[in-house]
């Protein structure tokens, strides 16, 4: 869609302060330092503490250590460049764009476990799309959790978009059906479907997700064009299992990494990218609808070394 590029710089201003902290701490750990075994061990700890996972950390550290011993690198600057390169290779630019339909509404299906931050993330997406001049319809397919529809409604009132809803306790696939019809009838540019939080271990709920997906596919050609998995940045290695199971059930195409404004680093997305090839597309960095950013591997590396 390209649209997120244009707003990126604006959002970035809001994060200048955070970035300074990141950069400063990267500097203090790596830049200008002579590389030695002590620094490598420190780096290893930081990576593990960022939830990157034992496997990926070991691979990176082994490679850095090998290069160091072979005399190919000898400073912290080299290490930083290596890590940035690794991440950039993991997430090439085109991977991070939001998919869009050639004609008709683009359907974005938003999924995730309970409490991941789906509804808030949808509000953010919606706000960004609206700023880019897109018309948006929301589908409230979370018919299970008490107050979920109301939560989305409050957002829709604040953001001035229409929301299609069904009965509390009703069939979410039916709501998806109605929402598709509404989006088509109103010639909306984008339809965002909110779904109920579900643990990836609940087989019946995962099947329900598959059903929602196939209802959408029948209603709108090529839909859903984007299936976003909202992941809480505080998650540990279990996020990998979530990515696998949600992909199996609904064909996840991208990750919305939410709640990256705390001390959590969300490093598990690295393990996810390696294991499943699912890219991160957006990050959520606050509670207001403007707190959304396109994913930036470079900033991500820097954030990983923040204290």
């Amino acid at each position, binding site marked *: 869609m390209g649209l997120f590029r244009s707003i990126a710089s604006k959002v970035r201003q809001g994060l200048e302060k955070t970035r300074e902290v990141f950069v400063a701490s990267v500097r203090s750990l790596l830049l200008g330092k002579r590389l030695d075994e002590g620094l490598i061990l420190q780096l290893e*700890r930081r990576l*593990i*503490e*960022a*939830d990157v*996972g*034992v496997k990926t950390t070991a691979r990176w550290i082994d490679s850095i250590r090998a290069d160091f011993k072979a005399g190919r690198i000898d400073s912290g600057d080299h290490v930083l460049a290596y890590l940035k390169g690794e991440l950039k290779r993991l997430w090439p630019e085109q991977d991070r764009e939001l998919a869009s339909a050639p004609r008709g509404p683009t359907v974005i299906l938003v999924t995730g*476990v*309970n*409490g*991941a*931050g789906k*509804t*808030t993330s949808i509000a953010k997406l919606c706000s960004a799309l609206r700023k880019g001049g897109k018309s948006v319809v929301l589908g409230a397919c979370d018919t*299970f*959790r*008490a*107050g*979920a529809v*109301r*939560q989305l*409604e*409050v*957002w829709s009132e*604040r953001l001035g978009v229409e929301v299609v809803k069904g009965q509390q306790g009703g069939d979410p696939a039916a709501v998806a059906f109605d929402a598709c019809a509404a989006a088509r009838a109103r010639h909306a540019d984008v339809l965002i479907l909110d779904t109920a939080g579900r*643990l*990836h*271990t609940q*087989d*019946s709920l995962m099947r329900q997700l598959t059903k929602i997906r196939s209802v959408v596919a029948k209603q709108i050609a090529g839909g859903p064009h984007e299936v976003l998995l909202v992941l*809480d*940045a*505080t*998650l*540990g*290695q*279990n*996020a990998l*299992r979530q990515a696998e199971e949600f992909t199996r059930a609904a064909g996840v195409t991208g990750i919305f990494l939410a*709640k990256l*404004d*705390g*001390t*959590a*680093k969300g490093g*598990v997305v690295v393990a996810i990218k390696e294991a499943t090839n699912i890219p991160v597309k957006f990050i959520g960095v606050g*509670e*207001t609808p403007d707190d959304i950013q396109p994913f930036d591997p470079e900033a991500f590396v820097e954030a990983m070394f923040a204290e």
Partner: protein
Amino acid sequence: MFDRLSDAFHGLFRTLSGKGAISEANVRGAMGGVRAALLDADVHLNVVDTFTQRVLDDALGMKVVEGVEPGQQIVKIVHDRLVELLGGTPETGGATPGGPALASDHIPRMTPGPTVVMLCGLQGSGKTTTAGKLAAHLKKRGRSVMLAAADLQRPAAVEQLEIVAQHVRDEAPGSARVEFYAEKDRVAEYGKAVNVAVGVCRRAVDQARKLGVDTVVLDTAGRLHVNDALMAELKQVQGLVQPHLVLLVVDAMTGQDALHSAKAFHAALGIDGVILTKFDSDTRGGAALSVKHVTGAPIRFIGTGERLDAIEEFHAPRIAGRILGMGDVVSLVEKAQEQVSQEEAERLNEKLARGQMTMDDFLGQLKTLRRMGPMKQLLGLLPGVGSMLKDVHIEDRQLDKVEGMINSMTKEERRNPAILNMSRKRRIAAGSATRPDEVGQMVRQFEAVSTLARRMSSMSASEKVRAAREMGRQGDAMLPGLRGMPGYASRGSTHTTSVKDRFKKRKR
């Protein structure tokens, strides 16, 4: 959960149990694997290092006890250290295995009332759902409760709690009162209602006192531990309302950051306990260990599902047992006791012994079993089974099929399955959307089970175990979909003694 962690420990014990004496080198080697497994299970790095160091010290300083295999001694060390890490010594910890019901320990009742419980935590950790579960838990124990909506910033959070309160009122067992308190006109957008919650909480507690409610649960807004303004708000609430219990709600799937957020909440409020949510996921749950380590506060409850009754009291020794693949037979028995009365159990036993079990009894048992929770979760409580189950998909739908088949039988057929001919099987299959051969298979399994049950009723305990194991080996498991479940005593049997002892103690 904890499955892969169990695997790692199994690995460690396999390495050690083969060796007569324990050398520093082989213990160190094995601990390396355990360290990686703990990290993979999201236990915080610092905690892992402390833990492995302690186990190593204990193991190396260990006096070899005559007649006890060194491997087993290490098992005990790891187990004890794990229990310690989770909160409590093996004998007295958090919950004494043989001790009394724990309701009073987990939410102590204060006089004069009301008892005030404040829930706090990060966004999305599950505070509102947990508030409802706590209310149901208290209601069941005859304690009236008020749910107070102190989350004024998440859209519709107040409505959510109101609906939850209504559910507790209508659906949760018990007859105690359930009140709801909110000030809907004070709801505001994020960041605009800071400190308003303070007044709301105070008035809620005043109201509860007037109404004579036993316990008030304050459902506060989710917040980041680095948001100073919101953390200050919580401190104000605490200062003014003086809650008896400040409980931190933590997502069991949290990674390394669990340590930082728990530390910050603890520093600000001095938390009295932790509730771990989403425990029914397949997380390995290292967060539990990290949080306990930095706060020192006991883990009081775990949330195990979406239903109101999906909350359990936390028992450190039991969870340590799960980690080590020792199973959690005590929890299983408790779950069963909640569902089946003593008389009913005896009546059924009698029938079993005389070989008079009918399909109706079987259906009844199946339904009871399912009320206890998902099959996979139940089987995971059996010693040695947890780690084998991690890749097995047990579909509760298979059980739906069996229920459907029995429901499609006539009364006569249920009493006497021998009369089932092909035409009857076809009818049953059509009625239950199954195939005639599936009906036949189900009936054969039912007969095998009832024969076994009759035989077993005259056996000694050890013969029973052997018979059950034999049955598992034949791959002739009770239900379709559970085919090939290994006999449960075949693994981890060296550790079962302590579980058995605890079990016996309980019975006394």
